[in-house]
């Protein structure tokens, strides 16, 4: 072993390491004998950091960025990139893939039922008010038949890995999950900037995502439309995910339109405004929230939407992905019921476990939560973006007593979960290769059948000890290798 072995001081401690730990009953990707680890150990830290800087500069030049607008103008920022890939063994992937397919099949069945006969509510498996009073529930969609019964054409399943290496679902994303562009661009960047790290390694390809997505959108086009004209509807250049919209439009070879480019006529048909007049549109992959999609049906003040889209959808003249009202399935409270929802529709046990979730509206769970507040993470179900979350082990006495009061007063509004430390992955830092926490978001496409992009987006908390992987808080990303 050479003296400057990059892995010499690597120590994941009690955390589960994606590269060096062996999961219970599972297989690791080879630990120190992993060909990548072996190869990396011969590298010089300074050159590796320099090469990574150059790679990041190229990301900026190529515009693989999110844009921050201010008075000073437009600033293009990159998502920090880590060149040490996260590897997933073929065996682990097989079960992850099956688990994601199962979960999304259940999510679509659930949505079809909720906007149809509502059997699951009648059978009392999921509380009625949880669904019908949910802010993402759209009354307007009741009884609307969708091609292939698909509601969440593009879903993102957020996964973490616990101390034993078990994959757990943290959250479902059924509306507009983003990040897939980074999955593919990270792979391109690896191939361009670190071909020596990839040489001879057998990895599943990710490059046909655009083709697959297009395929799913064709499968879910309005009835009797053979060759649908597909568009991607973006809020515009000011949206922070604009690059991803550009990327997907390019990969699918479809027009990237804004609301003002579209028009619904009195016959409920959707058109786009071209240099030679109006041209029919059949399928819209929208990256605009329900609220802003159609000022005729939802928020009247929306400048981003297209008046009449809902009308056209109901007339069966346009398909919209993801469906209006799909958000009801990725709600935090509904999440807690997912194992039961899977069982209910598919008659199967969930392949991927939820993070253990206590539903405060149920008496036993409530009692447990109140007894163990200081060890639990309590989340209000109606909030998103991390608002109102109380992390028991880190909370003050005053905070704990405030949350105790709030949970007692309105148990329906709360769920609680044990504190879970995310797994770690060897990550390049100026001080050497160090463990950093990661999560994983596989992308799942549904049309006539379900397909999962091998791997997904691995986000990494670049700060030591941090478990916050969000890009707004210093998170970066890694290439994700599903081994063949």
């Amino acid at each position, binding site marked *: 072993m050479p003296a400057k072995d990059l892995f010499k001081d690597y120590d994941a401690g009690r955390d589960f390491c994606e590269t060096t730990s062996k999961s219970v009953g599972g297989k690791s990707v080879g630990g120190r004998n992993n060909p990548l680890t072996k190869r990396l150990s011969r590298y010089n830290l300074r050159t590796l950091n320099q090469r990574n800087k150059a790679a990041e500069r190229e990301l*900026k*030049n*190529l*515009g693989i960025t999110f844009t921050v607008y201010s008075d000073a*103008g*437009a600033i*293009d920022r990159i998502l920090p990139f880590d060149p040490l890939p996260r590897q997933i063994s073929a065996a682990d992937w097989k079960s992850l893939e099956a688990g994601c397919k199962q979960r999304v099949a259940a999510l679509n069945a659930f949505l079809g039922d909720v906007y149809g006969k509502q059997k699951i509510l009648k059978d009392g498996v999921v509380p009625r008010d949880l669904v019908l009073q949910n802010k993402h529930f759209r009354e307007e969609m009741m009884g609307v038949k969708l091609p292939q019964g698909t509601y969440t054409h593009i879903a993102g399943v957020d996964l973490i890995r616990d101390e034993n290496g078990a994959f757990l679902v943290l959250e479902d994303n059924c509306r507009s999950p983003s990040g897939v562009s980074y999955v593919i661009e990270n792979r391109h960047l690896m191939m361009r900037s670190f071909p020596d790290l990839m040489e001879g390694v057998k990895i599943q390809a990710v490059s046909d995502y655009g083709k697959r997505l297009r395929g799913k959108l064709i499968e879910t086009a309005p009835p009797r439309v053979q060759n649908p004209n597909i568009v991607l509807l973006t809020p515009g*250049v000011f949206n922070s995910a*604009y*690059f991803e*919209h*550009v*990327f997907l*439009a*390019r990969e699918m070879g479809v*027009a*990237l*339109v*804004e609301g*003002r*480019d579209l*028009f619904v006529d009195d016959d409920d048909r959707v*058109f*786009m*405004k*071209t*240099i*030679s*007049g*109006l*041209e029919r549109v059949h399928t819209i992959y929208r990256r605009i929230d329900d609220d802003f999609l159609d000022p005729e049906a939802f928020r009247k003040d929306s400048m981003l939407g297209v008046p009449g889209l809902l009308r056209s959808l109901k007339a069966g003249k346009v398909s919209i992905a993801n469906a209006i009202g799909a958000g009801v399935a990725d709600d935090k409270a509904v999440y807690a019921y997912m194992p039961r929802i899977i069982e209910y529709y598919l008659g199967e046990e969930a392949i991927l476990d939820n993070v253990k979730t206590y539903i405060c509206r149920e008496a036993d769970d409530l009692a447990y939560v109140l007894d163990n507040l200081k060890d639990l993470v309590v989340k209000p179900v109606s909030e998103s973006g991390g608002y109102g979350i109380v992390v028991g082990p880190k909370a003050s006495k005053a905070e704990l007593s405030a949350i105790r009061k709030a949970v007692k007063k309105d148990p329906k509004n709360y769920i609680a979960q044990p504190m879970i430390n995310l797994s770690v992955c060897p990550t390049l830092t100026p001080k050497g290769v160090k463990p950093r926490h990661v999560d994983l978001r596989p992308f799942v496409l549904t049309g006539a059948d379900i397909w999962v992009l091998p791997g997904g987006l691995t986000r990494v908390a670049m700060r030591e000890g941090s478990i916050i992987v969000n890009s707004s808080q210093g998170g970066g990303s890694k290439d994700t290798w599903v081994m063949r």
Partner: protein
Amino acid sequence: MLLARFAENAFWLGRYMERVESLSRLLWVTEAFAADQESDEAWAPILSVFADHESFSDRGKSMTALNVARFYLTDKANPNSAAFAAFMAKENARILRHLISTEAWREISVFNDDLITLQKRRFALSKLSDICLQLRDGCYRHRGVMESTCFRDEVWRFNQLGAALERADQTTRLIDIKYFRFDRDDDDAAAPPDVAWWNTLLRSAAGYHAFQRRHSFNADAADAARFILGDPHLPLSVANAASTAVYQLERLERDFDAKPGPGVNAAAQALKARLESPPKRLAGRTLHRYIDAIQQEIIGLANALNERYFAPVG
């Protein structure tokens, strides 16, 4: 079929990049000539050419070479500056990103970063000609990358159409500087620095050597003006730019069934006719008036294009 909005963005991407290139040329010519004159007076004509006297004096800066140069190079609040045009080019390109090559976006992006660096550095006058050349080379590079990598679709045609129209317009302004500088009150006698001036202009328009080959003996000022205005083989000539624009319209109709229609055709014809019938005397006030008329035809064509292609129906 291409969205009307994208056609407009492609058109303006072409116009703005061409504007940066032309500004670099205009400033270079002014600087090159002013160096001989040792007078800031040489810089006033640029303000006249763009009708910018008012917005320049709003800034409360004295009329020095450096202030005018900065006003046109790095002042982003000035809509006639290179900094503004480059920024707008990038924002138009941003909207077109899924339709232009990744190479083209990369190049526009890097070019803008270079300009931002320039804005942060408060450059000295002695650096001006270097900076102008650097800008110009950036524009050449842009053109090369576009030419080499962009798919020849409607986006390309509208981009080239915009570039051609802007080039025609900017070349007339380049010629017009002389009127504001020397000829204002005198329609007859050629001003003393005539030959030197035209030579500088020809060099900036990459036409000096070609002009020498075409007019080796007894060339006079009017020949130079005629050459820059009307020579069909000079890339920057107004006539060449106009016929490139007409060619793009033909290709839009032929390849993409996007017929220009009567309004655009009439405006294009009017511009062509104007260029084919120059006045006998191409100097002084006559030349200035003629240039003014050409600019009006160009504006007419731009308006007709807007009406036909960019104003969305529905």
